[in-house]
């Protein structure tokens, strides 16, 4: 089906809107070209003109693609009431419930389907339930899925064994975090006496690869708290599944395990400017995130929310208000001390070195951890090329590193170009003063 043919069909349908055959052909064309919005309208008309289980299933399929989960479920339940053995309807209702993260109900339907046809096999459906222990009985599986604790830890919980001692350099950042986070939790009673609440949100921002995640983990390690890490993939799943419930469960889980640090990596995805998310499916999740940060329905005492982002400018200002991410900390590229420590680790098991690491570290200004790794790789490769050509094995020297530094552009440079513009032109309330100081802009 080409778009041209589709347009011809559209014109034909407009001329005879009650022609079921034409409508079916047009619907199939729309489906083939993934035009789900138009397809919804057509299948809805078709179902009105000629109600059937087949049309209801087709309708639900379109709604699945449009993320209209509850409407799809309703239609399929009606379809199954008319034809309780319709495999396609079962398959679709399982997928719909799964998409909504209601694994329990999805599994119940899966069980009913298996009862009707024990040999039923479908790659997509089987994959959903294959991770469960195959030795357990089906009742066990339902019980497992029904237990609330089974649903909640979708996000891995860990007790980090790193502390600030494991973070090289970054002295001022560590002091900042100690004053703002660690002391209030370590000396909770003192803070209570002075009426200061413990917890809140902290936003760590800076160029990629500068250790934001590492410092977040170390913070959790310092206060010996649970660490719940939520990455971009989980956030995207929340958007796609329209699952603000999942977000609520993460916060509830933390509330039951205080003190706890919830770490949102790439938090700008979750706290995106609602302007950027105009018309998008993610608005509910964003609003839910705001509610959870405010602790409207439950206390957030003892919960620390850490967010890391490369793009703080994409975060809605609503998230930066008091009580939410009210403390914003800039994580710059590693300083000279940190660079030296990183290089020492990188060069540890490489014997053919006669290198003044401190000198190299001092020269590698603005190099991130990843940049330093590629610096080492590049220098070794270049040296090997020379050795293979000359046949003379000479050690890698400081000057080899220094000439390599000149050829590698630090990956943070691009980030700073963007950040500089925000610091100069969009620095309301001095929120990017740290960048200005770092870049020496007056």
């Amino acid at each position, binding site marked *: 089906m080409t778009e041209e043919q589709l*347009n011809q069909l559209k014109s034909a349908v407009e001329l005879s809107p009650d022609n079921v055959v034409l409508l079916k052909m047009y619907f199939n064309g729309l489906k083939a070209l993934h035009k789900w919005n138009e397809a919804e309208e057509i299948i809805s008309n078709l179902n009105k003109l000629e109600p059937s289980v087949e049309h209801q299933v087709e309708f639900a399929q379109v709604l699945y693609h449009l993320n209209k989960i509850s409407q799809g479920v309703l239609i399929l339940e009606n379809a199954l009431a008319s034809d309780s053995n319709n495999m396609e309807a079962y398959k679709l209702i399982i997928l719909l419930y799964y998409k909504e993260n209601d694994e329990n109900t999805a599994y119940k339907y899966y069980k009913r389907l298996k009862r009707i046809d024990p040999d039923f096999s479908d790659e997509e459906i089987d994959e959903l339930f294959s991770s469960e222990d195959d030795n357990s009985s089906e009742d066990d599986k339902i019980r497992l899925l029904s237990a609330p604790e089974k649903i909640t830890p979708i996000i891995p919980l860990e007790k980090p064994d790193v502390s600030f001692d494991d973070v090289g350099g970054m002295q001022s950042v560590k002091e900042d975090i100690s004053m703002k986070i660690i002391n209030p939790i370590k000396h909770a009673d003192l803070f209570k006496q002075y009426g200061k609440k413990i917890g809140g949100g902290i936003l760590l921002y800076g160029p990629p690869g500068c250790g934001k995640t590492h410092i977040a983990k170390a913070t959790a390690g310092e206060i010996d708290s649970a660490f719940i890490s939520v990455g971009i993939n989980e956030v995207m799943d929340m958007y796609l599944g329209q699952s603000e419930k999942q977000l609520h469960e993460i916060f509830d889980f933390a509330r039951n395990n205080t003190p706890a640090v919830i770490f949102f990596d*790439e938090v700008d995805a979750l706290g995106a400017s609602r302007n*950027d998310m105009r018309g998008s499916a993610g608005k509910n999740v964003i609003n839910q995130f705001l509610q959870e940060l405010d602790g409207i329905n439950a206390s957030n005492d003892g919960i620390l929310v850490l967010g890391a982002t490369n793009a703080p400018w994409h975060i809605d200002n609503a998230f930066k208000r008091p009580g939410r991410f009210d403390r914003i900390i800039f994580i710059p590229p590693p300083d000279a001390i940190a660079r030296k420590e990183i290089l020492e680790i990188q060069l540890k098991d490489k014997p053919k070195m006669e290198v003044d690491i401190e000198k190299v570290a001092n020269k590698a200004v603005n190099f991130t951890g990843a940049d330093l790794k590629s610096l080492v790789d590049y220098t070794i490769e270049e040296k090997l090329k020379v050795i293979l050509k000359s046949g003379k094995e000479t050690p890698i020297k400081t000057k080899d590193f220094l000439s390599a530094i000149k050829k590698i552009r630090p990956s943070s440079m691009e980030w700073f170009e963007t950040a500089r513009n925000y610091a100069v032109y*969009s620095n309301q309330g001095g929120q990017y003063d740290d960048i200005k100081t770092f870049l020496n802009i007056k």
Partner: protein
Amino acid sequence: MSTISRAELLLQQNKYDLAEKELQLHLAENPNDAFSHAYLALAYSGLGKDQKALEAAKQSVSLIPDASFPLYVLSRCYVSIDNLKDALATSEQALRFAPDDADFLCNHGAILCDLKKYEEAITALNSALENDPEHAGSKQIKSIVLRNQGRYKEADDIAQEALEDNPEDAHSFAAKGWTALDSGNTKESLQHFKSAVMIDPNSEFAKSGMVMALKAQNPLFNLFYKFHTWIASLSPSARWGFIIGIYVFMRVLRKVSETNSPIAPVLGFIFALYILFAFLSWTIDPIFNIFMRFNQYAKYALNRGEIIASNIMAFLLISAATQYLLTFALPWYPITGAIGALFLTLPVSGTFNRWDTKKFIPHLVYTIALSILWVANIVLPIAGNDIPSLWFLFLGGTIAYTWISQMGK
């Protein structure tokens, strides 16, 4: 489906690198998924990898030649590499399949605007707005088209309408700024540009407007800006008519001044003014950028091309002045050094005016050739080997540049 949705979300959030990874993983298993190739092209575009974007878009179209979306993406990729001819043709194909899509119509309008086909652009943008009355992109482009036509009131109205839909729209603020600037309200324009860069400090459209508005605070620059705006608003034939007319008029004036001695000084003065005006109309922009380098607010808004151009201009102007003084101190020092430096400002300005376009490299090559001639015209006379034809070649080449580069506009 889920990969596409994920990629769409990531693209919407400007997370192009993550979208690229997501799509590449998906394409490793589904190499013939045309829509994923199209989304990959958008991710590459966002990352500034224009050539890769073009390849991905072409791949998408080859897999599903009858679908509109891949064609639309391909058209956008052609726009990114400044190939407006293919961009227009592909956009027309996309619209054949989906004539009512506001995004496609908006892209079509933008291409027509770049091709200076303003009436056709307005038609496309009006269709887009009929189908989606709140389509921000179409309102923004329509405002630009109307401004280019000199319809400032309408241009301002449509930008205002876009701002009412979304008060945080940097592009519409900038559009209002440009309209205010062109209609002579420099102070008002600066306010709009400041609002625009505050919302989106990475918008080149807003930043270049802000620099222009800051320069236009100076009456001399403002005069030239108005002249440029007026020239740009003329049709190509009217523009040529004006340029040739002035040239012929000045030739006549010069002839008269040679024969009619009593009014010769006055005519000579008018002729000198014309030369100065013609020279400044070429070079005033990069010359003023030298001053912008000392302005705390403007210096970060200049792009790399403007910074390099202002450096070269400063060098040439200082070099002209120094070499002129040298001719007094050292009688053997050739005047060609000072005059040549001034002449060279013309091709340098014209070349960097095309920064980030595919015409930049040929212009740069031409300018480098002229620069070599300029150096030769200094070094050879000092070495006692004066070749006059080389000097005429340099002068002729520079003047020819000003005429040839006008033809490209």
